[in-house]
């Protein structure tokens, strides 16, 4: 594994670390070139990721044979502003495009898998909707919505447990006290839009991996909730979903983080095999 630091992008405003596998398969046709993996910022944490998750992930994937790039989007981490007048969505798409161009120049790959956690998943979703170079995506705690099943699972245990009643009342008081404080959050896309987006990605042949953690139990609390949210989409062969109830949203425990890396590596090697490793999609 070799890592190299870059300042890149259309305004030379982005900073990222490209990781290259030690060995590159020889005489491999373009269609069989390994995909490049691009890791997007999780919230405002710089490119190393929460608790260095992105460093561990990219190095693990380099060891498997995939070239990677972890980088900071415009104005996040060590990246500056591009100076352009664009919407944030257009900025994200242009930044991701710059990142794919860089990895293509460095590693020769022409197809990419995007990985993002939380707002990174939303950004990966946005880019995957429109960029033809994206062949797959890993959405960590990406789009999800409360369903009737969620409310049942969430509420029923509370009805029979007096301690939970007490905690619910306490939380109501906290919410009331916090009312009026500014909330900084990215507004989620409506569910029908996300469903149509995901269907469009699958129609274009993208492979998708959606992993949800127990840390978002305010709106996601069961492995079946993806089906409840998006219906028969879950039956499409290009999609894979998983739920890790024990883990928190940013994988603060090393064991949870390793389990997540195992899942991503397994999915990637199955869906985007490195030529000569014996895996087939």
């Amino acid at each position, binding site marked *: 594994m070799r*890592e190299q630091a870059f300042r890149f992008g259309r305004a030379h405003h982005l900073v990222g670390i490209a990781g290259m596998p030690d060995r590159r398969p020889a005489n491999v046709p373009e269609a069989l070139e390994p995909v490049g993996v691009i890791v997007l910022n999780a919230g405002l944490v710089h490119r190393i990721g929460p*608790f260095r998750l992105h460093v561990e992930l990219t190095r693990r994937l380099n060891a498997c044979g995939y070239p990677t790039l972890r980088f900071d989007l415009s104005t996040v981490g*060590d990246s500056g502003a591009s100076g352009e007048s664009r919407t944030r969505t257009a900025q994200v798409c242009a930044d991701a495009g710059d990142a794919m161009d860089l990895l293509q120049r460095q590693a020769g790959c022409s197809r990419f898998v995007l990985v993002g956690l939380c707002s990174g998943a939303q950004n990966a979703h946005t880019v995957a909707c429109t960029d033809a170079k994206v062949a797959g995506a890993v959405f960590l705690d990406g789009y999800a919505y409360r369903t009737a099943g969620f409310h049942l699972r969430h509420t029923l245990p509370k009805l029979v447990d007096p301690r939970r009643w007490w905690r619910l009342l306490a939380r109501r008081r906290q919410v009331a006290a916090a009312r009026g404080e500014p909330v900084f959050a990215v507004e989620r896309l409506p569910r029908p839009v996300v469903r149509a987006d995901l269907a469009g990605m699958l129609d274009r042949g993208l492979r998708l991996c959606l992993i949800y953690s127990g840390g978002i139990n305010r709106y996601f609390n069961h492995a079946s909730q993806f089906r409840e949210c998006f219906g028969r989409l879950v039956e499409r062969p290009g999609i894979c979903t998983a739920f890790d109830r024990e883990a928190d949203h940013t994988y603060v425990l090393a064991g*949870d983080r390793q389990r997540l890396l195992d899942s991503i590596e397994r999915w990637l090697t199955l869906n985007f095999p490195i030529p000569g490793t014996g895996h087939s999609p």
Partner: protein
Amino acid sequence: MTLMATPLEAERPLYFGEGGELFGLYHAPGGRAGKAVLLCAPLGQEQIRCHRIYRQLAHALAAEGMAVLRFDYYGCGDSAGASAEVDWLRCIADTQAAAAELRRRSSVAQVVAFGARLGGSIALEAASPAHFAGLVLWDPVLDGDAYIARLDALQDELRVDPKRFGAPRPPAAAAGQWTGFAVSDRLRRQLAGLRPAPVPVPALLLDSLGPAAPRPWDRLGLGAERVRTLSATPWDDLARLEQAILSRPLIQAVANHLREPA
């Protein structure tokens, strides 16, 4: 203080040191550098929380005509090595290597080091071998045993934090880690013995520990005029574990201090 925008080209990401294992960002000053400042990061989650303020500080100092290098120790940030491989003596050696890199790039011999928390402690330990001309220490850790006890307690609170986990996690799941990072027994032992000697060079100490915290600053042998008090920084607040540490007064205090003639 006037903060000028630093051209992005002047902020250069690079790998340096033996085998190119260390990641750094060199902030070149607009003209010929008058001073050079090495920013020594804290360890673990405090490094992530301080990333933004270190960048802001580097921009402010570069705008004042100083050459600045931010860097990651082995096993930290973008540098080579796993989190569990962080080693105290290696951190000090990496700081010496970073000081040499800063001197080479800036052509300035006299380097002042800045460090927050364990970054301050590392700068202090490296002051003589790295030949620092001065130190700026922000809440440095001077009592290793107390620091270890606090991080162990935080880790224990974290594993049962209902805002983070649906159900409490067993002690084994959280063992050998401090707030998100694997920690080796060797690093624990090294930190347990941490008792910095008095500062060997001119220094400024920035104190933001808050009114209730113990202050072993007299161990550093600094006069009261070399200590500035800032509003409290929530270093140990589990609810803010993933929030950035930001402080405009801190940046102003460091820039004002370093602007003074040596």
